[in-house]
């Protein structure tokens, strides 16, 4: 990227990473206005999930005896918590990458204003993605605190879980953003996505029970989802149960998905904005 010196006070082309930061700055300023509402939801939602499934449903599971074979001897809450961390990252990704992206093109049209500045469509796409990623990381940190308060943390591995969950959510967000940038009219597309992609994935990709408990023919579908890989990594990091080779495999899969998503979303943003 060439840097052009301009007269005092004039504009210049920012290097790529700075361009991404100023796009994030935009979302930060926008977010600051209404942060209280999201703080409440980012505390209440994990609390509800952890209480309902980890503590409530978990007591049933733990009492059942057989469950400890699957959880590797730890309580269901400890087993579930890192999985919920990955699941919540994927949910944040889904919500933040659908309507807000469509709005950037269509309703609020903020992308168009940015595209008239030295920022490129690719930088706008990556900046928005990084913002979503930062939101996942901060919401995930709150999640970790609450898990800790409920007694679901067994070691520092949970910090690694948080990073894995964020990687998983970011890879998914890039793909969803790419999808959202070709949707011209709201309505069917997003609700179909939530119903037929997001909800089945959060239920069957290994968050609540191992994928091996699914009928044989469904397993390959679960294995293809980013959430399964994110969950395996996240849980493995928290419980120390994952071997190096499987861990590497999951990481490579998620990084490959991320690379694919970033490539796609940059290209599609360019196609939509440079017309």
């Amino acid at each position, binding site marked *: 990227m060439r840097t052009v010196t301009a007269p005092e006070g004039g*504009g210049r082309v920012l290097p790529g990473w700075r361009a991404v930061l100023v796009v994030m700055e935009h979302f930060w300023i926008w977010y600051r206005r209404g942060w209280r509402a999201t703080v409440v939801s980012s505390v209440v939602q994990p609390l509800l999930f952890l209480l309902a499934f980890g503590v409530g449903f978990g007591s049933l599971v733990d009492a059942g005896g057989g469950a400890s074979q699957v959880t590797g001897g730890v309580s269901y809450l400890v087993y579930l918590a890192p999985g919920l961390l990955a699941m919540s990252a994927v949910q944040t990704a889904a919500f933040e990458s659908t309507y807000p992206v469509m709005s950037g093109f269509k309703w609020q049209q903020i992308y168009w204003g940015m595209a008239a500045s030295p*920022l490129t469509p690719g930088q706008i796409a990556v900046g928005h993605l990084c913002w979503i990623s930062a939101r996942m990381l901060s919401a995930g940190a709150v999640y970790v605190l609450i898990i800790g308060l409920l007694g679901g943390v067994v070691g520092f591995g949970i910090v690694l879980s948080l990073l894995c969950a964020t990687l998983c959510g970011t890879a998914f967000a890039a793909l969803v953003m790419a999808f959202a940038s070709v949707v011209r009219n709201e309505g069917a597309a997003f609700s179909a996505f939530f119903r037929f992609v997001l909800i089945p994935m959060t239920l069957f990709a290994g968050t609540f029970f191992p994928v091996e408990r699914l009928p044989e023919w469904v397993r390959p579908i679960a294995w293809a989802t980013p959430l399964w890989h994110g969950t395996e990594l996240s849980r493995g990091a928290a419980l120390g149960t994952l071997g190096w080779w499987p861990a590497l495999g999951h990481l490579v899969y998620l990084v490959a998905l991320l690379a694919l998503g970033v490539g796609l979303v940059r290209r599609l943003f360019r196609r939509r904005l440079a017309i």
Partner: protein
Amino acid sequence: MTGAAMVRATGLTKRFGGLEAVRGIELDVAPGEVFGFLGPNGAGKSSAMRMIACVSPRSSGSLRVLGLDPDVDGPAIRARIGVVPQQDNLDAELSVRQNLEVYGRYFGLSRARVRRRAAELLEFAQLTDRAESPVEQLSGGMKRRLTIARSLVNDPELLLLDEPTTGLDPQARHLLWDRLYRLKQRGVTQLITTHYMDEAEQLCDRLVVMDGGVISAEGSPGELIARYCTREVVELRFAPDASRPGAEAFAGVAERVEELPDRWLLYAADGEAVLGAVHRSGVRPRASLVRRATLEDVFLRLTGRSLAD
């Protein structure tokens, strides 16, 4: 880079699928010049402006903005120009001040610099007392003023204004004209599209009339009037339902005539003489007046169904 053109286009073309919105136009805009685009709806003005703003890639032809090729140096060009799009794309949920500050950051300006610049621009747009309001609460004209202020955040060398004064009240329009004039005196080159002929006449050193994607005339406002119009125009107004004379009634009286929904325009060097002749021939308009020809007459001639006698 004195002497070099700020914008130079040859054979500049924009296609949207099968539709050719801009069909091979030539442009040469000198530094410091205020250059206008006139033309009816759909003429291709905005499409041309968007290519020059480096947000819309050209389909064919050559284009240089500030001496650079938009296909290669789009970001570097955009860093040095200001753009007022036809449709506002402000951040509705941010405050007026935040809109200016955030936008300045995209141009690599420091936080301190954007703060100072935002304060200046708020004064410029007379929005200082609304600085902390969310943009969605502003009136249409205030939003327009903010969009114009925002385009100046990077002290642009070239300013592209697509219908800047649409929706502004007369005071705001005059204020903007004054501000644009000052920018011109500081050497800022400007490209303006407008549907207001008085505005074009006031502001533009030189302008082109576009129609159907091509340039049909080019020159200074005075030159265009001299070339395409007579010195004076007679307007004859008729009641909507009254029977109106046909073009043949004015044959031989005026050099050229033009029919509008509610009136006839008769072009001649001596308007009073024509009006006298019309009255003698027994035509009785509801009202009549003689005035000097304006750019509007040129526009009607070049883009309307002009009836030469």
